[in-house]
């Protein structure tokens, strides 16, 4: 899969850059959890936290509305925007209780209630007065949706989680690619694309070395560097959208099989 051909739009810089120092960092720095930031009482911090959540969840929310609620494209777009704005205005996520459920389960419950109420009111009200956390590329999400095979009956929890991971990885790949480009190391990312994003059982490090005019050792080192950057970036992004540190550690274990502190 060539990210450039599939993703001509994604040169935007609305993400945390992955610097060489960051990518070599042993693990993401400890920081306030999303719940602590939402409840911080500092408007800027709270808004930034909601922005991170919107960034991390808007696509799974949109796809969920299309699949589970069978919303048409226009309704799903409106509901996605309205939900995120209303959640911010009415402080939905401040009510999250980590001991009762995971954050993404809580978010989905809020979303279900929101959609029920909206449909009962028989109208879709755009809320938020132009409040916008992130650019929502709905066409992009719709394009992805066409490629997803949805099981029938749908397991909503699994579906939502899988889409959350898909988006998390896609965002991380963009960040890593941009970062390697910026550092003049595009070839390293291209190696990673060839070997890890287009897995072929026949392709060996020796083949890659020949194709890219490198030694096998260089191929090994370059792949390791990009994988490390991807892992650290994905963990950082995961931490950004996890309800609590406990939830972050559990997700890191489930998704990557990694113990983080």
């Amino acid at each position, binding site marked *: 899969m060539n990210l450039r051909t599939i*993703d001509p739009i994604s040169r935007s810089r609305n993400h945390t850059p992955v610097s060489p120092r960051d990518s*070599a960092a042993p693990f993401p720095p400890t920081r306030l959890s999303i719940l602590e930031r939402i409840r911080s009482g500092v408007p800027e911090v709270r808004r930034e936290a909601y922005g991170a959540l919107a960034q991390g969840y808007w696509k799974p929310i949109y796809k969920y509305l299309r699949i589970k609620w069978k919303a048409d494209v226009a309704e799903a777009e409106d509901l996605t925007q309205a939900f995120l704005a209303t959640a911010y205005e009415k402080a939905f996520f401040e009510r999250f209780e980590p001991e009762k459920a995971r954050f993404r389960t809580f978010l989905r419950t809020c979303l279900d209630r929101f959609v029920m109420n909206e449909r009962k009111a028989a109208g879709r009200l755009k809320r938020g007065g132009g409040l916008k956390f992130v650019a929502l590329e709905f066409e992009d999400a719709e394009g992805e949706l066409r490629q997803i095979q949805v099981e029938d009956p749908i397991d909503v929890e699994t579906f939502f989680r899988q889409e959350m991971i898909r988006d998390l990885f896609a965002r991380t790949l963009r960040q890593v690619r941009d970062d390697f480009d910026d550092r003049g190391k595009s070839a390293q990312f291209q190696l990673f694309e060839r070997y890890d*994003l287009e897995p072929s059982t026949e392709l060996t490090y020796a083949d890659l070395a020949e194709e890219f005019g490198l030694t096998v050792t260089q191929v090994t080192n370059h792949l390791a560097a990009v*994988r490390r950057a991807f892992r650290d970036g994905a963990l950082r992004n995961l931490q950004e959208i996890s309800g609590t540190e406990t939830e972050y550690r559990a997700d890191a274990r489930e998704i990557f099989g990694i*113990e983080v502190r």
Partner: protein
Amino acid sequence: MTYLPDPTLRRLREVANWPDFSGTRYTVTEEIARGGMGTVYRATDGVLDREVAIKVSNTQSGHKELDDRMRTEARVLARLEHPGIVPIHDAGRTPDGRAYYVMKRVQGRTLVEYLQTTDDLNELLGIFERICEPVAFAHDRGCVHRDLKPENIMVGAFGEVLVMDWGVAKLLDEPHPEPVDDGGGGLETDGTRPGTVMGTRGYMPPEQARGQIDAIDQRADVYALGAILFTMLTGSSAPPAAADVSDLLGRRRGIPKRLRAICARAMAPDAEDRYPGAGRLAADIVRFRAGEPVDAYPETLLDRAARLATVYRTAILLVLAYLIMRVVVALLAG
């Protein structure tokens, strides 16, 4: 951007945890097995040009408990040079700070898979003896495995047996960290403190199930070996710790009383009633196979006669045939 199909997601999840061996002699090629503490990879040793297996901790650097546990496992393996225990070649840290050790790459089937291929009692007992041998060797060197189960036994193409996964082994002569959470394998829960549980249900003795870490010694492994023997004899999973093993085995046809007694003694709920170590258990199995009296079963005269009749069946039959022939000849002559 970018739609990432499910196979690519799976691949990314895998490579996100791929160990970084850049600048070292090892090139990792494939994930072989994943446990809670570490993942085993197939790799090539570029210096010696041979395949090896590398176990790498499932952590980023800085997770002291997991790192300590990995080091302990490496030390245990280094201490136990035995044909039934996979040899360790090297240990260290990856460039991204994760603990690892390198061992011989073992090819074969797990005992679980092997049991699907045979039910020949003598063959099974031969394998069981070879399972006991490395465990007895470890016991002699003050080491308790603590997670023996069919999944941790490998049987090679020529019947060679290797006891694997010493990740929660306990060195009796030194304090060491207890294992941490095993998300994907055998451990029941976090075992960092007394009172917590580690091991695999069915194969751990009552004292281990109760989290009495200080009470765990060689006899815990004896219990697990008894449970493995139970599985080998019956094809069933090991019973709960409170079960009457002798009674359960008695309901099966073709399991001799003395063998039932050996299994029941190994799985005695009270550690005091078990064999003191794997060597004594193995010795009883050897005696059973040789038709000799076993420690676990006090014989009556009738039992002894029956056993001897079995052992000397051929000789007895020959004598009987001779006597019958003499009688027939005498009758014909008379």
